[in-house]
């Protein structure tokens, strides 16, 4: 199994600012994903982080708002840009090896 860490674990940010979340996997994974989980809700896929190329975004999510990088097989970042209170959520990254997908502990973001 893979162990995934995220930084920061939580943050409180002002409206209009941006936050970059880091995701580190302790072993190589084939796929990496970013999800959002709003309070009391299920997880929604934001995008697939592709190594060395642009991420693949789901409907309703765009690169200008959520730029993603994945420079190698074990690391990815998600930036939440020009934040508003509606972006308050838990952001989780995951990595996939074979058929199993492992999740990080999440980053809890509060936007004031």
């Amino acid at each position, binding site marked *: 199994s893979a162990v995934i860490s995220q930084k920061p674990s939580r943050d409180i940010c002002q409206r209009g600012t941006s936050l970059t979340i880091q995701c580190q996997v302790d072993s190589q994974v084939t796929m990496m994903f970013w999800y959002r989980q709003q309070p*009391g809700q299920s997880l929604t896929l934001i995008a697939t982080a592709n190594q060395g190329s642009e991420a693949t975004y789901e409907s309703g999510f765009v690169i200008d708002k959520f730029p993603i990088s994945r420079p190698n097989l074990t690391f990815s970042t998600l930036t939440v840009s020009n934040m508003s209170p509606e972006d308050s959520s838990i952001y989780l990254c995951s990595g996939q090896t074979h058929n*199993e997908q492992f999740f990080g502990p999440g980053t809890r973001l509060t936007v004031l």
Partner: protein
Amino acid sequence: GENVGLHLPTLSVQEGDNSIINCAYSNSASDYFIWYKQESGKGPQFIIDIRSNMDKRQGQRVTVLLNKTVKHLSLQIAATQPGDSAVYFCAEILDTGRRALTFGSGTRLQVQP
């Protein structure tokens, strides 16, 4: 703790009883299903998976049943323990290429000692 499961349906059981958590999935073309457990303040944790060519799979104290006719998935937990208290999500893989997960709405399991 985090607000995971705050607005989700809740199943309350007594310690030692068996629990059954149900899930309806959306796409008849999905070929792989997973149950995850999410404790407060943590990311989802893999419990058990099942492929679409199976209708039952057993793990340690857990059994997953798949009914493709009605697109229904269930998770059975035997001899439920207080440590089983969490939010449980089913997930399906719709895109066999990317293997991205689509999550169900989730159920909060409360185990009464």
